[in-house]
């Protein structure tokens, strides 16, 4: 038997790696992949708590999170394609047009 806390460690580690990817990488594709990793880490925590309480709610949430993550990936990647088409690059540091 694996203690529930060890699942939470796994979730925290994966989430931290995802945060590191979002903060450190400049390529929008890597940022999006890191976000998927963070969503997955949240799913691991949800599944762990579902196991802790012995009911299905956590797993249902994780299921919905998977569906939302898929929709998010579809739209996010479409935006990346559109940005690439007008700028030939997907470096997030160069995308400050809306900030000024």
């Amino acid at each position, binding site marked *: 038997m694996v203690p529930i806390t060890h699942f939470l460690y796994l979730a925290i580690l994966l989430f931290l790696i995802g945060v590191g990817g979002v903060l450190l990488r400049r390529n929008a594709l890597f940022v999006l992949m890191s976000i998927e990793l963070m969503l997955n880490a949240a799913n691991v925590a949800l599944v762990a708590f579902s196991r802790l309480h012995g009911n299905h709610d956590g797993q249902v949430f994780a299921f919905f999170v998977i569906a939302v993550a*898929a929709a998010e990936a*579809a739209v996010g990647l479409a935006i990346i394609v559109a940005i690439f088409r007008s700028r030939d690059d997907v470096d997030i540091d160069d995308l400050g047009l809306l900030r000024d």
Partner: protein
Amino acid sequence: MAASYLPALVFLAFAAVMATVLLLLTMVLGPKRRTPIKDEPFECGSDPIGSPRVKFGVKFYQVAILFLVFDIEVAFLYPWASLFRELSCTGPLGPGGVCTGAPTLFGLAEMLVFLGILVLALGYVLRKRALDWA
């Protein structure tokens, strides 16, 4: 129980060992006589033209989007299918899956609503001719 997934673990271990051993064997045993012609990418005997890493068209992406959406739809269909008998019955199921209450259309209706909304997406994509391959 997780113990019933032992065969899957054995399968994974077997696949990993197999791949490693085969790769190692070809690395150790295979003769290594490299010539420039041998190192060329093989394209049915003709000279290679350009880089193999060609840009894909966005068409592929739109097909992949539709695949993703209907993949999720199927993911929701699995539990619905395995539960359909229970959802179509107001009472608990008796022995042999016989309905003890009155039959109901609730299970069918909720999935039809779900599918109907997704068919709207398919209709939109077809109307926008995103799948035309011309």
